């Protein structure tokens, strides 16, 4: 994570800023979180829908587009190109958007970004703020911070609104309330909208949506400031882009006096044509739509002659550790366009859902990004809780090698001795033998016989002391008795094939 202060940000931060209790990450509690998730029946039912719906829809829409694979390659290449020249594209973007009347603010840390946004709101005398869905805003804990400083920020994306009522984090980057049942949402609405008639019917999703529409419509119209994220920033035109389905992002951006965009620096793409490439893979990978309902390019404040639109347009460019990622083995993670396809296809995510990951970014992309942003020592379970099945990489629209990067985190963890002692010892014990083939052969020959004997012809173990994790839920097959290599040696004899291989005795690396 980028350390260091920024004079401009510090100077801009007025006195008397209340520190917010931001959503503290519970990434350290992955195992406990996962266990709770596995026992949560409502969550398990909700996750079944994730598994079935998202996967099928993506496949259908991909099958309908012959150029889909070529577009994935193009999307990857555009991101790689942009990252290689990120400094220059950021400068170009900044130049363009300033020419169009926008204001750029760079933020090194999450704290800087929060302070910049608070400062803008205070200067405007803002009391009411509407928000479009933004993972970066979750990352910096914006809502709680604004709230602690007397500014009410209302989430307007339906899923985000619901979890805001529950004071929860999103459990999925596209469908934040995917873990909830209709009954839970009804309970939340009744609690929160206490001024509405109690006998009203909220059984159907349509009535819940209708209620949210009318409650939030008032908020849209009353907001002083609207804050959105950005899926992309286009350098050529100085535009920010949001990709949504509800229309809340656009109402947030259009109605208030000021529009603030919060975007991390890797969102930049060079041109409108590049944007088109990425748009073609984004919605398809995320929800199985060919295009989201609303894809909006926003450039500067309202122009002279416009009848609507904000008078002020601010873009906060957040670093928060990304610039450091550029130089290392996690650079490819900066290609991510936040589609959610990886978690939609992940067997671990299907089992435990998003909250188990403990922070803003769940699933495979979260397993790689979270340690980069908050440190591997805070999030060591995330890249470890993977079978490396590879489905995430298979569907990633920008072809991020996610399993490889999870493995890189495991390497960092190993180098820094962060893994539990028992695991290190177990590995060291195994490695001692694995590196010494002759000894290994002897040891395994003994182990095979002993285990086979212990199984007493039943062929399996119901309990196995050193493998209780396995035998808690599964039987463990016993060895057949004599290892393959010992049988091979016996059958074929020393004359054929079990002598030391002749020839190259290459130098060990």
């Amino acid at each position, binding site marked *: 994570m980028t350390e260091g202060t920024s004079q401009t940000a510090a100077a801009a931060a007025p006195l008397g800023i209340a520190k917010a209790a931001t959503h503290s990450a519970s990434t350290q509690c992955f195992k406990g979180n*996962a266990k709770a998730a*596995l026992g949560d029946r409502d969550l398990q039912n909700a996750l079944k829908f994730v598994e079935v719906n998202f996967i099928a829809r993506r496949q259908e829409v991909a099958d309908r587009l012959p150029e889909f694979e070529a577009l994935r390659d193009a999307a990857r290449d555009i991101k790689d190109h942009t990252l290689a020249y990120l400094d220059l594209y950021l400068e170009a973007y900044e130049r363009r958007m300033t020419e169009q009347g926008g204001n750029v603010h760079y933020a090194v840390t999450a704290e800087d970004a929060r302070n910049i946004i608070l400062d803008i709101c205070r200067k405007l005398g803002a009391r009411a703020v509407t928000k479009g869905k933004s993972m970066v805003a979750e990352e910096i804990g914006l809502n709680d911070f604004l709230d602690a400083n007397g500014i009410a920020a209302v989430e307007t994306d339906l899923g985000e609104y619901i979890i805001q009522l529950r004071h929860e984090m999103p459990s999925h980057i596209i469908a934040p309330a995917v873990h909830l049942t209709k009954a839970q949402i009804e309970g939340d609405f009744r609690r929160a909208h206490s001024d509405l008639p109690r006998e009203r019917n909220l059984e159907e999703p349509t009535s819940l949506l209708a209620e949210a529409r009318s409650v939030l419509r008032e908020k849209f119209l009353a907001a002083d400031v609207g804050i959105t994220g950005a899926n992309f920033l286009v350098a050529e035109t100085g535009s920010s882009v949001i990709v949504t389905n509800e229309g809340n992002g656009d109402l947030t951006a259009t109605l208030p006096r000021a529009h603030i965009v919060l975007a991390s620096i890797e969102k930049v793409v060079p041109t409108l044509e590049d944007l088109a490439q990425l748009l073609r893979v984004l919605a398809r990978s995320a929800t199985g739509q060919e295009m989201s309902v609303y894809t909006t390019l926003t450039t500067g404040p309202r122009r002279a002659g416009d009848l609507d639109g904000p008078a002020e347009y601010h873009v906060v460019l957040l670093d928060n550790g990304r610039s450091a990622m550029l130089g290392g083995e996690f650079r490819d993670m900066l290609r991510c366009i936040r589609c959610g396809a990886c978690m939609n296809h992940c*067997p*671990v995510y*299907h*089992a*435990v859902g998003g909250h188990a990951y403990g922070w803003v970014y769940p699933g495979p992309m979260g397993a790689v990004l979270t340690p980069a942003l908050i440190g591997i020592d805070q999030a060591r379970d995330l890249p*470890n*809780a*993977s*079978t*490396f*099945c*590879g*489905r995430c990489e298979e569907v990633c629209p920008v072809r991020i090698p996610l399993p490889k990067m999870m*493995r890189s985190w*495991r*390497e*960092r*963890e*190993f*180098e820094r001795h962060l*893994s539990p002692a028992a*695991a290190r010892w177990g*590995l060291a014990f195994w*490695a001692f033998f*694995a*590196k*010494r*083939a*002759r000894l*290994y052969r002897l040891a395994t020959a003994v182990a*095979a016989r002993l285990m086979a004997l212990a199984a007493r*012809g*039943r*062929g*399996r173990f119901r309990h196995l002391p050193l*493998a209780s*994790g*396995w035998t808690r*839920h*599964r*039987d*463990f*097959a*016993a060895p*057949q008795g*004599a*290892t*393959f*290599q010992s*049988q091979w040696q016996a059958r*074929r004899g020393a004359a054929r*094939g079990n002598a030391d*291989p002749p*020839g*190259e*005795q*290459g130098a060990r*690396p």
Partner: protein
Amino acid sequence: MGETMAERKTRHVGLFVTCLVDLFRPSVGFAAVKLLEDAGCTVEVPRQSCCGQPAFNSGDRATSREIAAQVIDAFAPFDFVVAPSGSCAGMLKIHYPELFRGDPNWQPRADRFAAKTHELLSFLFHVCGVRAVAARLAATATYHDSCSGLRELGLRSEPRALLGTVAGLKLAEMHDANVCCGFGGTFCVKYPDISNAIVAKKAANIAATGASLLLAGDLGCLMNMAGKLQRDGSAIAARHVAEVLAGMTDEPAIGAPHAPSGPAP
């Protein structure tokens, strides 16, 4: 060198038996030998331990490289290296070159080694040109696509094609055959509850096919799925696909008792 061998139709194969087969189920190794010899190969088994994947996936690159170097050395005399496991073959073929990237001495050796390494069924089908086997087995089976074999090595149609030639064998495809079984090597012991949730889904999908026999190309996956099926009280038997293709199904199925009353399922 490889082409000359192919022309002479005698392929000298070093069998990478895999640590799980070696320790738990040698019959898979012998089935592999039979299939290879039937296809005109000579088979030898140099002294070996493991491909190093446990160290690799635990982040211990140094140990992985040390083991990899030993494997590359041990298999140097052979034209082909064949493993009855998609996950081990993937380690040897895809990850060994990664381990030595940039090493002027070992990278070329690792690349050459990777080029001559194959998963068993892929080798039989694509290199030896095997299109049918002489085995027979009256049973309905379902096939699980192990993740590494499928996604690292592209193995999908070959097992099904060859199983289709086993007389009397019916194949019933399970729902989500290509979805992970939850084994994941060290994953199943580090996160046993999550692994269990995943394998429970897999077991349900297997049972829903009505098959009496579960097949796959990776013993780790098979032990995981068989263990769950057995704990559930299922009668479904699990075997490695090589055993069925080689017609060697007299041994008890995975995890089954050692004194069968008749021919094993």
